[in-house]
């Protein structure tokens, strides 16, 4: 996309990336923004870490523009000078976009090549411990439900709660409830384990829970940034049922300028969160097991001929960061890091 932008922005074509809600929370550690300010900070972070110069528009908190354009997560549109939509794609395709602009505006003499630019998301690691608290392995498929923060404007939600229920639980009027607290990397804060456990106190209305007080396990490291996850059973007694969650923990910033006790609330509704997206963890192990098993000769690198036909472009395009036609273990590791420890 960047090459198309570089070739056509100078010819009067306007380009905008549209920010909407996070589709895959946990990738690069990022989680859903609760406020417009957090969305704008996400954009700034993305530009800083990718080096992209394409301007952004930030959709409103109701994702009004995305809905007006049919809701595609990675859609692409061309609007003509009269405001009419003249191209519409569910998946952005820079190659087709270049063809479109060539027809509409004219061809470019010497198109910018990907090799001419250095735009890619740079994974940054933090000095705080991670990967030390075992992740929960969920039994089967789960879907997100609404976890609405109490007042995200007056004090930042350093840790953000995600709620999911086991598939089919609404129809069966009961099942498993997953609650995950994820530290938002925008704030560069960590759990202070010396100050105690992360705690969630639940009050239910219309539901029976197997546990109402949830406490994270004790962690030996004085500080870490791993998610705190919980899995309990629930049974719906009436509708609409909801929970009030009071989350408490002590957060310190990585620069050690503050350590403060936090207590914040959520309303959890037993209602599918259409904007909740999906966490990639469930798929990653299988996906990367496949990637590593491609190394048939066991030399530690994956060459194009080891990748199944039909997936070479995808694998090499995303993992072969130095464009040498090989995927080495460092490149796999870098890709893994985008999804956390």
């Amino acid at each position, binding site marked *: 996309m960047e090459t198309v932008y570089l070739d056509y922005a100078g010819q009067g074509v306007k380009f905008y990336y549209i920010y*909407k809600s996070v589709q895959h929370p946990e990738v690069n550690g990022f989680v859903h923004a609760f406020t417009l300010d957090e969305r704008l900070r996400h954009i700034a972070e993305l530009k800083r870490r990718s080096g992209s110069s394409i301007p952004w528009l930030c959709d409103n908190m109701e994702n009004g523009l995305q809905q007006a354009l049919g809701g595609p997560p990675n*859609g692409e549109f*061309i609007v003509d000078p009269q405001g009419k939509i003249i191209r519409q*794609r569910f998946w952005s*395709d820079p190659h087709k976009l270049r063809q479109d602009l060539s027809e509409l505006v004219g061809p470019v003499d010497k198109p910018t090549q990907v090799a001419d630019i250095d735009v*890619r998301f740079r994974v940054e690691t933090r000095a705080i411990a991670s990967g030390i608290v075992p992740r929960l392995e969920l039994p089967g498929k789960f879907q997100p439900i609404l976890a609405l923060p109490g007042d995200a404007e007056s004090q930042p939600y350093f840790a953000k709660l995600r709620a999911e229920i086991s598939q089919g639980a609404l129809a069966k009027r009961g099942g498993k409830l997953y609650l995950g607290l994820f530290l938002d990397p925008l704030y560069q804060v960590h759990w202070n384990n010396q100050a105690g456990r992360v705690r969630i106190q639940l009050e239910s209305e219309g539901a029976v829970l197997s546990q109402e007080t949830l406490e994270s396990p004790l962690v030996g490291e004085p500080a870490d940034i791993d998610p705190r996850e919980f899995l309990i059973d629930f049974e719906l007694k009436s509708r609409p049922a909801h929970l009030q969650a009071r989350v408490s923990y002590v957060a310190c910033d990585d620069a050690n300028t503050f350590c403060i006790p936090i207590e914040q609330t959520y309303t959890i509704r037993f209602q599918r969160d259409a904007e909740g997206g999906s966490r990639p963890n469930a798929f990653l192990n299988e996906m990367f097991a496949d990637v590593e098993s491609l190394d048939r000769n066991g030399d530690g690198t994956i060459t194009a001929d080891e990748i199944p036909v039909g997936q070479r472009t*995808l694998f090499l395009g995303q993992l072969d960061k130095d464009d040498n036609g090989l995927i080495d273990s460092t490149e796999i590791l870098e890709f893994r890091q985008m999804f956390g420890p």
Partner: protein
Amino acid sequence: MTAKALASWMIAIFACVGSARAQEDNPKQETPELTKEFAERYNENFLERHPLMNTQLKDVSVFDESGQPVSTHTLRDSYTVLVFGCLT
């Protein structure tokens, strides 16, 4: 997980994550048949379910990078490309 399910998911995540180099111009590169099939199917369904071609872009209030309100009604006077990007 079946190969098709994996490819479907990979389209979703790769479309969001990192660079879009796999989709960039390179006439010599191999066509990812499996993913191309899924992408085209998604596109066809999208065009059927949300026929927006040759309709006016709705007026929606969004924000620029500094947080100032912007009406999509102002996106005129030139060709404008809108792409839904993903932080993730």
